[in-house]
């Protein structure tokens, strides 16, 4: 039943199998289009996931050589690990926490709504909320998002109950257990959440939506999708007319292979996607494929993040239950009177003891640190996720002096916080600590950002081929049969966790590709 294509078979080749690539692969396969998905990682399913933080990290995390530079604290704390994403079939949908929020309407048009912000390269998306509404609806139905389509919300765990009490005491109104792609009841032949924790380590019940065990096997069942795992894309090749013709990759044995392609969709996440385009430079495209604008790799966004952990007098046991168990949305609005443009969400988060020791205050030591860890059982936690400013100088480049295991130039991720990001984070720390204080916290910790899981914007979407890499369909301005299908096409990042939008864009893109192919335009 599972397709097996010849290397000379010119199918659609998708690079990556996460939220963007995995969804696109299934959607195209459902339409009877031949697809080869090249996935750098191996295949792990719920029975393989490990509920142990470091062991799971070793199993799933993308640990290839990378470098972080710039003023962001991640460069100091985790210089070789700018991101916390996954190398596996299903990509980072194995790791994500499940929060599935639509962009707010104004966030599609930030340049218009925020105005020019010095030092930022704000731009309006070429699409808007009305355009995306039906695609969001399809994504929500596909993923079984709670509080949509009549699906109930998840029950709140202890960590949520602490957040809720404090938030309501402060007068916040939009406080609930979120819109989550975690089954609150059986849905899509998958069982409901058992409140096990370890959402970040892959859901062993399959209650959380992940392309690894939804889109990918559904696509394979059609007989049109072949997922080639442990296949690391090296470069995309093109012909004399500037159309892409195939993808060179290293297979599981480290052997170089070339898969012919009638169309290539890049969905390797926001670091690997621009890296692949840059590493595909040729005499016709000397600055990298699809890079006549010089925008490939630029405007890297990673959300303005941070966490607040607080210790209470009595046990909370925040690790019990869903990791992201609830949300406060009131601060997500655009309200410049707070001293910054854009807004942020506050979402509960918990870490196990091993990761808490690594992330609470990286580099911290002594009694100030250990007395905090001593309070672990009495801790509650929340995560800040806010809109960060796109900046041209925040970018992914490749270092030709440092090569990976395949001899390919490695990515360098440069990021400096914008003043708007700093103001937003400081505001969020203050509000987050106030929420916990209102529910009885005795000591709070403004915890710095973790390596980035939300990676956005390095192949951004614009109608203007001079200031963006792809058009409103995610299609490269320079190369007609080359598409970008992941979060790197984001024009701006909004305040919401990006997966739902990536999935909605992938469904929409599949529809467009299929109709253009049948019309003979691709």
């Amino acid at each position: 039943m599972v397709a097996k294509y010849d290397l000379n078979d010119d199918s659609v080749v998708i690079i990556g199998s996460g939220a963007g690539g995995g969804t696109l692969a299934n959607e195209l396969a459902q339409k009877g289009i031949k697809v080869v998905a090249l996935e750098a990682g191996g295949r792990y399913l719920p029975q393989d996931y490990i509920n142990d933080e470091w062991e799971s990290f070793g199993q799933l995390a993308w640990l290839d050589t990378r470098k972080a530079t710039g003023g962001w604290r991640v460069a100091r704390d985790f210089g070789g690990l700018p991101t916390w994403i996954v190398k596996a079939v299903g990509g980072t949908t194995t790791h994500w926490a499940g929060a599935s929020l639509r962009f707010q309407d104004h966030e599609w048009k930030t340049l218009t709504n925020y105005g020019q912000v010095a030092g930022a390269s704000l731009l309006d998306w070429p699409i808007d909320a009305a355009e995306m509404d039906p695609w969001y609806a399809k994504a929500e139905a596909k993923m079984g998002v709670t509080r949509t389509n009549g699906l109930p919300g998840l029950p709140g765990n202890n960590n949520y109950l602490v957040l809720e009490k404090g938030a309501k005491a402060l007068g916040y109104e939009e406080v609930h257990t979120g819109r989550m792609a975690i089954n609150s009841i059986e849905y899509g032949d998958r069982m409901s959440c058992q409140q096990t924790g370890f959402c970040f380590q892959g859901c062993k019940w399959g209650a959380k939506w992940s392309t690894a065990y939804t889109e990918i096997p559904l696509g394979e069942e059609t007989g049109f999708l072949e997922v080639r795992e442990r296949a690391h894309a090296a470069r995309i090749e093109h012909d004399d007319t500037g159309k892409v013709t195939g993808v060179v990759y290293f297979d599981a044995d480290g052997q170089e292979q070339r898969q012919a392609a009638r169309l290539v969709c890049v969905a390797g996440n926001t670091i690997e996607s621009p890296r692949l385009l840059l590493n595909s430079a040729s005499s016709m495209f000397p600055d990298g494929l699809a890079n006549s604008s010089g925008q490939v790799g630029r405007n890297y966004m990673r959300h303005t993040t941070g966490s607040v952990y607080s210790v209470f007098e009595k046990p909370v046991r925040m690790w019990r239950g869903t990791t992201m168990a609830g949300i406060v949305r009131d601060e997500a609005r655009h309200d410049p009177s707070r001293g910054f443009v854009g807004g942020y969400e506050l979402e509960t988060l918990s870490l196990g003891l091993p990761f808490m020791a690594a992330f609470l205050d990286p580099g911290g030591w002594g009694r100030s640190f250990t007395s905090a860890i001593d309070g672990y059982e009495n801790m509650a936690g929340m995560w800040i996720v806010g809109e960060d400013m796109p900046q041209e100088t925040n970018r992914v480049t490749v270092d030709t002096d440092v090569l990976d295991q395949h001899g390919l130039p490695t990515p360098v991720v440069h990021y400096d916080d914008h003043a708007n990001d700093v103001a937003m984070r400081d505001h969020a720390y203050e509000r987050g600590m106030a929420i916990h204080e209102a529910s009885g916290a005795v000591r709070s910790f403004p915890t710095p950002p973790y390596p980035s899981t939300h990676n956005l914007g390095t192949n951004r979407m614009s109608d203007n081929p001079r200031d963006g890499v792809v058009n409103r369909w995610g299609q490269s301005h320079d190369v007609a049969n080359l598409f970008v299908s992941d979060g790197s096409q984001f024009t701006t990042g909004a305040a919401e966790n990006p997966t739902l939008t990536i999935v909605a864009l992938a469904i929409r893109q599949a529809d467009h590709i299929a109709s253009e192919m049948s019309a003979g335009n691709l």
Partner: protein
Amino acid sequence: MTKIDRAGLTRRELLARSVAAGGSFLVGASWVTGQSAAWAVEVAALKPETMATLVQMARDIYPHDRIPDDRYVVAVKGYDTPEQAPMIEEGIAALNAAARGKGFDSYLAAGWEDDRVAMLKAIEQGEFFQTIRAGLVTGLYNQKEVWPLFGYEGESYSHGGYIDRGFNDIDWL
């Protein structure tokens, strides 16, 4: 093979086996400053007093009074190899030199934690300190044996998660 000989043979051998097996073996009062023997471990490449100092340094970096010494021993035992030993010997020698500069006979001879922490503060940007500290983040906190001391329950999948076991049992809010 040299042994740190501060305790009776039977206890020492028991503990050495326990540590080698990664098991838990609770021992009593502090061994520092020449007081009564508390734990013992066989050392292969490090000088015995170097290992003793390294274990104290580990506790001073991440002091948890509820964690017994043997957990810190397990956390740093990986440095007791021919490859790692020179780096450790050099770092500990420098720490002892700093202690003598402060009027103590050695790092271990400084009885108050505050005095020892002041010496660590002076080297905290250095490679030796950062290597030891970073190694402890996983070496100490990723030992399943210490998790219960912090209330952490580890995995719950084998118990069916917390849906019927208290995911929302908070009763003091």
